[in-house]
């Protein structure tokens, strides 16, 4: 009897052992194969995937992409620590990269290719992160509703005459936070607070998650003006030539702040087990070929000195950028968020 019983029991034990093995393999994060990289990306998947695909085609190295919010990914990297499967972090904001660097999440790099391609002000002193592309806060306007000389400065958007006529990004977007930081440094907290207050009133419910939606709303005439990163306007125009939307470079007047600049960038995660492949990817992204993809597909300003921006864009040399070093964005972030919350932006 006991023998008869033990047979199924034995089988069951073996089965459950297999099951447990399977479960363990499934649940514990596994290190990807050698010729594979895991990229955490805080940029829109549409903007980064084509470039990563080009890298895969060129090198045969497969890329697993996790697209999510930049801050969320930095939080995730912190929590995962050395166990993370991420090899690289790509973000839409230099401040987030600097925060990741100061948290010790990124790997310093000593690569001639980087130093030759990207000017010093667009990367960390130890190259733990490297800027890839430049983007500027512009005022997107609908030429059928607004004349470009009606707005000189970003701060003009807080004017009550634009009530219900402007669209702004959501307050958790890193690029809004970075922009507000720059305004704080230039104009001080009190003036920034008034500006944000006006922005909040004027925008009403026109607060968007994505820049593309803001540009879309302007082009449709739902609002007259919007704050967005420049390339969304040009991407919109490339997809729909002749759409009634244009970009206006603000704060260029005598004594003005200059356009607010930020960079997208990349850093290698400190605990990566694929340092060589990861370096290959960074090299690809900063080299002329990679930079040209960003310029052509995404309409961003390449940071490589020898790569030209899309001819449709405003010539980079023709306007001034605000004078706030990118790495400063990291330390400015917390007080900026507090100010944004005090004003109660959505």
């Amino acid at each position, binding site marked *: 009897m006991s023998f008869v019983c033990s047979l199924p029991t034995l089988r069951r034990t073996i089965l459950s052992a297999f099951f447990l093995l399977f479960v363990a393999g499934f*649940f514990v994060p596994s290190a990807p194969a050698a010729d594979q990289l895991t990229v955490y990306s805080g940029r829109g998947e549409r903007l980064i995937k084509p470039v990563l695909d080009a890298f895969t085609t060129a090198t045969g190295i497969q890329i697993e992409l996790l697209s999510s919010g930049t801050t969320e990914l930095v939080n995730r990297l912190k929590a995962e620590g050395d*166990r*993370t499967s991420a090899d690289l972090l790509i973000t839409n904001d230099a401040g987030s990269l600097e925060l990741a660097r100061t948290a010790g999440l990124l790997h310093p790099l000593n690569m001639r290719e980087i130093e030759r391609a990207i000017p010093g002000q667009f990367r960390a002193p130890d190259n733990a992160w490297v800027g890839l592309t430049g983007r500027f806060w512009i005022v997107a306007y609908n030429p059928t509703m607004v004349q470009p000389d009606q707005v000189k400065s970003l701060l003009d958007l807080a004017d009550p005459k634009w009530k219900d006529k402007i669209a702004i990004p959501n307050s958790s977007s890193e690029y809004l936070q970075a922009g507000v930081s720059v305004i704080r440094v230039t104009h001080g907290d009190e003036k920034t607070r008034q500006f944000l207050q006006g922005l909040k009133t004027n925008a009403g419910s026109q607060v968007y998650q994505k820049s593309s939606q803001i540009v*879309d709303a302007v082009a*449709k005439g739902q609002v007259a003006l919007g704050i967005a990163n420049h390339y969304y306007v040009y991407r919109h125009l490339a997809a729909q030539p002749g759409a009634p939307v244009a970009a206006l470079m603000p704060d260029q007047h005598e004594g003005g702040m200059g356009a607010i600049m930020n960079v997208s960038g990349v850093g290698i995660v400190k605990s990566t087990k694929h340092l060589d492949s990861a370096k290959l990817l960074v090299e690809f992204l900063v080299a002329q070929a990679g930079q040209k993809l960003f310029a052509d597909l995404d309409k961003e300003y390449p940071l490589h000195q020898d790569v030209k921006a899309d001819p449709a864009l405003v010539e980079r040399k023709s306007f001034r950028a605000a004078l706030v070093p990118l790495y400063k964005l990291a330390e400015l972030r917390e007080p900026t968020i507090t100010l944004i*919350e005090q004003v109660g932006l959505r």
Partner: protein
Amino acid sequence: MSTIRHQLVSPLQLVTLATAGIILLPLGYVTAQALSADPVVWSRLWATRIPELLSNTVSLAASVAVITLILGVSTAWLVTRVEFPGRRLWEGALVLPLAMPTYVLAYVYSYLLGFGGPVEHLWQLVAGPQARIFSPHSYLGATLVMALATFPFVYLLSRSALLSMNVSFEEVARASGVSRLSTLWRVTLPLMRPSIAAGVALVILYVVSDFGAVSLLRYQTLTYAVFQQMTGRSDNTAASILSLLLVGLALIFLITERWFRQRSRFYQTTGRYRAPQRHQYGWLGTAAVIGYLGLIVGAAFALPASLLIQWSLSPEAQATLDSRFFGFVWNSGILAASAATGGVLIGLPLAYLASRRPTILNLGCLQAAYAGYVLPGPVAALAVLVLFTKLAPVFYGSVLILIVAYVIHFLPAGLQSLEPALQHMSPNLEEVARTLGLGMRATWRRVTLPLVRNGFVVAWVLMFLQTMKELPATLLLRPVGFDTLAIRVWMEASEEYYRLAAPSALLIVLLSLPALALLVSKDWRAA
């Protein structure tokens, strides 16, 4: 004998206790984190966000409750008390909106009602080229979408009430000379009150914890704010504080719902002595009834579904149907299947012990498992995240934490099928089997399991379905390479790439339909 029993029961008891612990721990952690937060953070949130978020959440819940009440009760009354062509068909069609996840409905409506969208064009033909309609990205828009998505809850419960109600009360009223309308008002509706209230409470709970629709319609509620705090801030303190408020709010509604459900049991004991007479209207009345039902089913299901089909057939959408797309399908399937299996395995001992040995401890464990009801997706994600980073960081970034979040979140849905399945089965059957010489294990395998199998299947399917549609927890916890269909819908829809989102959305709806049929057939048997 007693030693055998002892050996068998105590591991089960341990499992139950451990489960209840696992479910309550995350909630406890979030609460602790919120309560130990710097008072400065609390006062900042009170001064800036909380009043707006609370009033937005409560007013949305209130307006949706009113609309679903009207839609749900009126449709239930029509299909049970009026005879018209295709009545049985309409009876089923009114449940179909439950197959539409709120985020799918939200994105379809943000296209339809959007600036320069088709509805506005139609309206401009009537009211002149400058006319505007209300924006879907508003209180009104969120109300409309949530009401269309949730009214079937009220409909189903009201319908059951109308079918099981003793018609003699109404007949007495009519015989005493009370008018038909007055009977409805003074007899029928008061008798239905517990069911209606339970349905509305369910709707409110659903609205309060919804993330998909409010995020796409950019309407700020507590649930959406928790998600934004988690993704936009480097620490989770503010998110925990908002979560605690949200849990409190949901708890109030949950208790209300329970309270009404207890009372409704009392009413449902009165048997129905014969089927109510169905009234037949003239052709005009019949046309009006069908028009009304058609409008509701059309707006909540037929129109969105046909748009999804049309978009899915567009060349851009077809181009996305590559191996990557099937990867998303596979991810959705495997995650949902794991969560459903996990949920059943965990729910079974809980439900079994609570029905067989209803000690305070066992009942308490069962109640703990219902905590998932008051943990909206982002909160469940936050809770599990906090727990794992504190206790078992090795699993961070793995599939396990996502599945734990799903199980915690959806266990109540499963338990609601498991619990009655076990309760309906008389313990005598097991006792007979034992007397006839079957061992504990054999009794389980040959008597208990076959009897509760249907409850199992329903529980599994329900959890599978809910997990497959789940959005916020998946967004926050998914490991690398685990994008699901729901994620794809949300990512494409939030950039207004309506066509690209359509195939994934359509597939979710199609997969939901069989599960819905199962759910409804269960309900119909119960009625």
